[in-house]
């Protein structure tokens, strides 16, 4: 019986009980102070356990494991722990003058809605010539999205908290409610504390011509933050997570089930992949 009780308590904490079982356990907890104490102790030990292993997802991944994942072999002398570096296979950075245009564009976008890809064909970043205008628009739209995300991030870093529309507070649910009033769907806030990232606030920006939320996170660890996560709705097809560079910024973007997301910052690419993985999981799982 004791064993069954322990199982029920643990399953209750893990959210694995059906409604009737949950009600039964809650009645039991309500009636017995000793059980309430056990429940609290179990919750605390679970939290301690997660903290004890948190370093393994924030520490740099050893080079030998990266090589193994790529099907390469690394000699023992090379198999030292190094911080993941971004791949340099992207095209050369655009001319510096274009960056100012992007910043100006990003500044002008604050609170505005810009048509998908409109007026952006002069950017020179379309890559190989596509045969159809539809594809050109699609690619330009993507570049526009990423350029704006990078520009928004630069603005946020340069201006600090003054640009945050809704600063973080004790009740982040209230923050999200406020920012979501201007969006087509409720925004959810991924918890990135295991990465040492603290939520600082939210801004309204534009993704693919639609208002979106820019969630701003900061940390003392310069290998990870500051970092911005932009989440908006989209009617575009899904895209698997893809890495891009914009000058000194790393971006990981993906579209999934009507939601367009981009992580942007100067974070090491290894961290960015891990955080993006965490974010994608949380947004799907919540």
């Amino acid at each position, binding site marked *: 019986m004791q*064993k069954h009780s*322990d*199982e029920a*308590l*643990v*399953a209750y904490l*893990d959210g*694995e009980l059906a409604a009737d079982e949950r009600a039964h356990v809650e009645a039991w907890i309500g009636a017995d102070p000793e059980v309430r104490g056990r429940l609290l*102790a*179990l919750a605390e*030990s*679970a939290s*301690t*356990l*997660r*903290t*004890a*292993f948190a370093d*393994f*997802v*924030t*520490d740099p*991944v*050893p080079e*030998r*494991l*990266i090589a*193994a*994942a*790529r*099907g390469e072999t690394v000699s023992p002398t090379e198999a030292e722990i190094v911080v993941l570096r971004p791949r340099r296979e992207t095209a050369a950075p655009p001319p510096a003058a274009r960056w100012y245009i992007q910043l100006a564009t990003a500044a002008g976008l604050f609170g505005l809605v810009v048509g998908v890809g409109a007026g952006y064909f002069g950017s020179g970043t379309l*890559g190989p010539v*596509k045969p159809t205008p*539809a*594809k050109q628009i*699609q*690619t330009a739209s*993507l570049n526009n999205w990423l350029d704006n995300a990078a520009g928004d991030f630069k603005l946020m870093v340069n201006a600090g908290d003054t640009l945050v529309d809704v600063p973080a507070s004790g009740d982040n649910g209230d923050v999200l409610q406020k920012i979501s009033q201007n969006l087509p769907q409720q925004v959810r806030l991924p918890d990135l504390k295991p990465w040492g990232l603290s939520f600082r606030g939210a801004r309204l920006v534009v993704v693919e011509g639609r208002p979106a939320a820019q969630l701003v996170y900061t940390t003392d660890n310069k290998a990870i933050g500051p970092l911005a996560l932009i989440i908006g709705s989209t009617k*575009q*097809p*899904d*895209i*698997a*997570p*893809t890495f891009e560079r914009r000058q000194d910024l790393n971006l990981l973007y*993906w*579209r*999934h*089930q009507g939601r367009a997301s981009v992580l942007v910052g100067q974070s090491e690419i*290894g961290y960015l*992949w*891990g955080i*993006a*993985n965490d974010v*994608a*999981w949380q947004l*799907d*799982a919540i």
Partner: protein
Amino acid sequence: MSSRWNYGEPPEGAVPRPEPVSKRFSDQLIAVLPRLRRFAAGLTRSASEADDLVQAACERALAREHQFQEGTRFDSWMFRIVQTIWIDQLRARDIRKEDGDIAEERLGTDEPVRRVEARLALSEVRRAVSLLPPDQRATLMLVTVEGLSYKQAADVTGVPVGTIMSRLARARMALQQLLEAGVGERRSARDAEA
């Protein structure tokens, strides 16, 4: 719940540089490496042993890339590979001897009393996890640390959900007792020094 990265092939034109499937597979693998390391760290007794385990899992995953089913969870598939290799390694050794060694090591350990309290506590937690039976250890890491549901953990370990429930409850209770015992030992050591 949907899988994390298995969103299907990106539409032509949407991604500037379409990538071959094998590279995409490697990218998925790299993305889960931090969590695989964490899971492996909970199963093994040292970071280097954990990394050896993850490296072996990467090599096996690449060799069996064709066996991964699109639309299923990539992380669960990798957790299963890590766990399978780990069990093979345990079987190759003498499990009883290994667990006995751990217990003796714990009994004979003289932790420096002046270590930073928080770090000591965290290392004690990891040590406590290593004292659990292998099946409880794996279940605890999958559910409580990696956040898998009972059903997903059952799929990874190949046991019924009911078994996951009982293993998890035993693991959580045992962990709590070990942690409380560790705190008691530290207090005794401090009192003795004072």
